[in-house]
C-alpha cells in the first residue's frame, strides 16, 4: 500500500485568469475561504497549526510577498508558523510536499498549504525581463520557452515527433478546459488554429504555450488518522518525489527528457508502491505542448520516444489509458506558478472522489461532469517540472484507497 500518512480533507481554488481587479491578497483570501468552506463536515480555522505559502515570483507584484507572514498575516492566522516556498514551476507542489513532511513528522496535526501567483500586475515586457534575469552572460535571454523549445527541436530530431502531435496536446487540453469552471480559457481550438497562431519560439507557436495567468489554490491536509473528523472521503497522499538536475543548460546531458521528472517519478511510484499503469488520471506540467509529450515518457505512461504517438492515438484523452490534464492543464487553465501545483492537486481531489460535477460548487454541474474521469484503480498523479535549466520536478501520487 501507499505511504498514506497524510490526507487531504479540503481544497479550494479561484477562477484563474487575468485578474486585473484582484490584489494578490484577495486571491489568497478567496482560495482559502473556498477551501475551508467546502470541507464536508465543516472546518474550524483554529485547527490549522502550521502553514506553507508557495509563491514563485513575489517581486512581480506590489507587496513583495517574500515571507511566511504574507499568508497568515492576510487571512487572520497570524501567530502560527508559516514558511514561504519558492522552487520554480514546482513551487506549489513543493509547498505541498513540505507541508506533508511537516504533518507526517507528527509535529503538526493539521496544516494549510496555499499557492498564489500574480502574473499580471506587471506588463508582459516586465515579466519577460524578470524571467530572463540570471547569469548575465551564461543565462543571457533565458526564459522558459528558450529552455523548452530546444527540447522540442531535439525530440523532433531524434524521434520524429511532429508539430501536429504537439498541437494535438493543445487541442486536447483546450477541449478539457471548456468543462472546467476555474479555467482561464474555455474554448476549443484545432490543430489548424495552433499552426496559424504566431510563431513564438521555434518550433512552438503561441497556442503551443500556456498563458500568463493570475490564480490561487489551497489545500487543507491532516494526519491520515484524523481525516474522519473532516470528511468520509479523504484523499490520501500515497507518495511523492522531488528530482533535481544541473543548474546551467550547458551542463545538461540530455535534451529529450527531463531528468528531474524521471527522478521525481521514480521516488513517488516507489513510495506509493504502484506502477505508471495504475494511474487513472494525471495532472501534468504542460507549460508547452512538447512538455506534455515528454512527460508521458518521463512518467512512464509510454516508452521513450513514443510520446508523440501517445497523444496521437488518444491515449491521454479523458477516456484514454490515462486521462491527462482533465482540468485543461496549464495550457487552458493557466499557470500561476505558485498556485499551479496545488490547483492540480485540487483537481485530482475532485477526480478521485468522483465529485468533479460539484467542483466546490463552481460552474454548471452538467458541464463539469463532462470532464469526470472514470476512476478504476483509485490513483491520480500530479506533476510539475521547471526552474532554471528545467532542473527541478515534483511528482505527487494521490489515492482514494485507504
Amino acid at each position: 500500500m501507499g505511504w498514506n500518512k497524510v490526507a487531504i480533507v479540503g481544497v479550494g481554488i479561484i477562477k484563474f485568469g487575468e485578474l486585473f481587479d484582484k490584489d494578490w491578497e484577495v486571491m489568497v483570501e478567496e482560495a482559502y475561504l473556498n477551501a475551508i468552506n467546502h470541507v464536508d463536515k465543516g472546518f474550524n480555522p483554529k485547527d490549522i497549526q502550521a502553514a506553507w505559502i508557495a509563491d514563485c515570483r513575489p517581486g512581480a507584484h506590489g507587496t513583495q510577498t517574500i515571507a511566511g507572514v504574507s499568508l497568515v498575516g492576510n487571512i487572520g492566522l497570524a501567530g502560527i508558523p508559516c514558511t514561504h516556498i519558492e522552487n520554480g514551476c514546482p513551487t506549489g507542489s513543493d509547498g505541498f510536499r513540505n507541508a506533508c513532511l511537516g504533518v507526517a513528522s507528527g509535529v503538526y496535526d493539521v496544516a494549510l498549504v496555499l499557492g498564489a501567483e500574480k502574473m499580471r500586475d506587471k506588463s508582459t515586457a516586465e515579466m519577460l525581463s524578470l524571467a530572463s534575469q540570471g547569469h548575465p552572460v551564461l543565462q543571457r535571454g533565458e526564459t522558459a520557452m528558450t529552455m523548452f523549445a530546444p527540447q522540442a527541436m531535439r525530440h523532433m530530431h531524434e524521434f520524429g515527433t511532429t508539430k501536429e502531435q504537439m498541437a494535438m496536446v493543445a487541442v486536447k487540453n483546450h477541449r478539457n478546459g471548456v468543462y472546467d469552471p476555474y479555467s482561464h480559457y474555455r474554448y476549443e481550438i484545432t490543430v489548424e488554429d495552433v499552426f496559424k497562431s504566431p510563431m513564438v519560439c521555434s518550433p512552438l507557436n503561441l497556442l503551443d504555450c500556456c498563458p500568463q495567468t493570475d490564480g490561487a489554490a489551497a489545500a487543507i491536509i491532516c494526519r491520515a488518522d484524523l481525516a474522519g473528523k473532516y470528511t468520509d472521503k479523504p484523499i490520501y497522499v500515497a507518495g511523492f518525489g522531488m528530482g533535481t538536475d544541473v543548474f546551467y543548460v550547458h551542463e545538461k546531458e540530455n535534451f529529450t527528457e527531463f531528468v528531474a521528472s524521471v527522478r521525481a517519478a521514480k521516488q513517488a511510484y516507489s513510495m506509493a508502491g504502484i506502477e505508471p499503469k495504475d494511474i487513472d488520471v494525471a495532472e501534468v506540467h504542460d507549460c508547452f505542448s512538447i512538455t506534455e509529450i515528454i512527460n508521458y515518457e518521463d512518467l512512464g505512461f509510454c516508452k521513450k520516444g513514443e510520446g508523440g504517438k501517445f497523444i496521437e492515438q488518444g491515449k491521454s484523452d479523458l477516456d484514454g489509458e490515462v486521462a491527462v490534464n482533465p482540468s485543461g492543464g496549464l495550457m487552458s487553465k493557466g499557470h500561476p506558478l505558485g498556485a499551479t501545483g496545488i490547483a492540480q492537486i485540487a483537481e485530482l481531489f475532485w477526480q478521485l472522489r468522483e465529485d468533479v460535477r460539484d467542483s466546490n460548487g463552481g460552474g454548471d454541474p452538467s458541464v463539469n461532469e463532462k470532464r469526470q474521469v472514470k476512476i478504476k484503480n483509485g490513483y491520480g498523479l500530479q506533476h510539475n517540472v521547471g526552474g532554471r535549466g528545467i532542473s527541478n520536478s515534483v511528482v505527487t501520487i494521490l489515492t482514494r484507497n485507504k
Partner: protein
Amino acid sequence: MAVGIVGYGVYIPKSRIKREEIAKVWGGRGKGENAVLNENEDIITMAIEASVNAMEHSGLADVKEIDAIYLGTDSPPNIEHSSIGIIAQTLGARQDIEVMDFTTSTRAGIAALKAGVDAVKAGRIKYGLVIASDYRPASPGSNMEMFFGGGAGAFIVGDKDTIADLEEVYTYSGNFRDNWRSLADTYVKDYEPRFTRQYGYSEYVFSSVVGLLSKTGLAIDQFQHIVFQQPDARLPMEIARKLKVTSEQTELGSIFNDIGDTGAACLFIGLSSVFDRAVSGNRVLAVSYGSGASDALYLTVKEPIEKARDRCKSYQSYLANNSYIDYPRYLRGKGVLKKDEEPASLGVSPLSPFMWRASAELYRLIGAKCLNCGYVNFPPSQRKICIRCGNTEFKEVIFSRRGKIHTFCVNYYMPPGFESPLPIIIADLDDGVRHRALGTEMSPEEVKIDMPVELVLRKLTSEGNVDLYGNVFRQIRIK
C-alpha cells in the same frame, strides 16, 4: 636589424550597405558600398577577430609569446578606459606586457604600428600585437555617412621570419583641421571640403611621399604596391595622378569602394589585401592621413610570405562573405534607430564583482577539466566540485571555438533590449564541451541541428553606458 610584420589578419564585418541605399534617403550619388556594424559589434569585437587571424597567420605557437598590445582606433567606446584589457583577456595574453592606446586620429593605427616596430628595434619586446580597428560615428545625412565603414586589421610585429619589413618612415605634420569630433560631438564633423581637400589631404600626403622618396632615394615607379589613406574615392585618385602612380600600383590596396572609409584601420586592411597577393621582393608604399598629418611608410615583402599563405583568411574571403542590409537596419546597427524602452535589467551591473570574478573565463572560454572523470566544468569560478563526479581537482582547459549545433530555438518574443527573432543555441564544441549561447549573423531559417558554428565575442548589452560582452555563436564565416 630588419624589423617588420610576421603575421597579419583582417576582419570585415558581415553587414554591407550599398551607398545607393543611403542616397535613396538623403539624395546625392552613391557608388560602391560600406561594411557596417551590427548593434553587437564595436572596435573591440572587430579587433579581437583580426588579432586571432593575425596570430594564426604568424604561426606563433602561443599568444603568451606576445610582449605588447598596441591598439589604434579613432572610435574607442570609452574616452577614459582602455579597450585593450578585454582584448588581451579574450586572446589570453600575459599580463606583464606593454599596452598602449593610440587614438584621436585616423593615423592612430599607423602610430601604433610605428611604436610596435620601434619597441622591437629597441629590444624591449620580441613580438608585439598591433591592432587598428575603427568604425567612426557619422551623422545621418552627412557626407561622412556616405563614406564611413568599419573594419579591423592586426599585425604581429617582430624581427624573425618577417613577411614584410618596415624599411623607412617619413612623417609630415602641421596645424590643420578637416575632420574632427569634440567631446561634445556625437558625430565626426567636417569643414568646407573644397578648401580642406586641397590644403589638407592633398598637401600632407604629397609632402610625406615626396619626403620619403627623397629620404630613400627611390622613385615612385619602384613600388609595386601603393596604399593611400582612403577617405573617399576621389582624393586617392587625385593624389595618384599628381604623384604619377598607376592604377596597377594601387589596385590591391584600394578598398574604399568595397568597405568604405575605415579610418584608422584603412591602411592595415589595404596592406593586408596587398600582402594576400604580393610576392617576395615587392616594395610597398603606405601613406596615412589624419587631420593635419601624414606618414609615408616603405615596406619590402619577404620570402616567408609564401610559406604562410595557407594560414591566411584573406581580405577577399571576407568581402565575399557578406549580407546586404537596408538603411533602417543600418541605423539600428549604429544605435540611431532604437525602441524607446528600458532594456531588461541584468540583475548585477557589468561592473559587479560577480562579473569581474568570471571575466577571464567567460571571454577566453576557460573550463575546469575534472582530473577524475574528464568532464569540463564551466564556469570555473563557480565550480570547485565536479558536478559529474564530485572530484575537486581540475586542469585548466581552453575551449575549442568551433562545434556543431546540438539543439536550438529561435525566439521571436525576446525581453526588451534584445534583438528578435533571436537564435539561442546549444552546441557541442569540437573538444566535446557543450556550450549554450545566443546566435548572431544568422537568419532564423538557416539554423539547423548539426550546423557548424563558431564562438565569437560580441557586445551583449549595455547597462548605465557600460558594455557587457560575451561569446555568441555564428555560422563558421571563413573556413
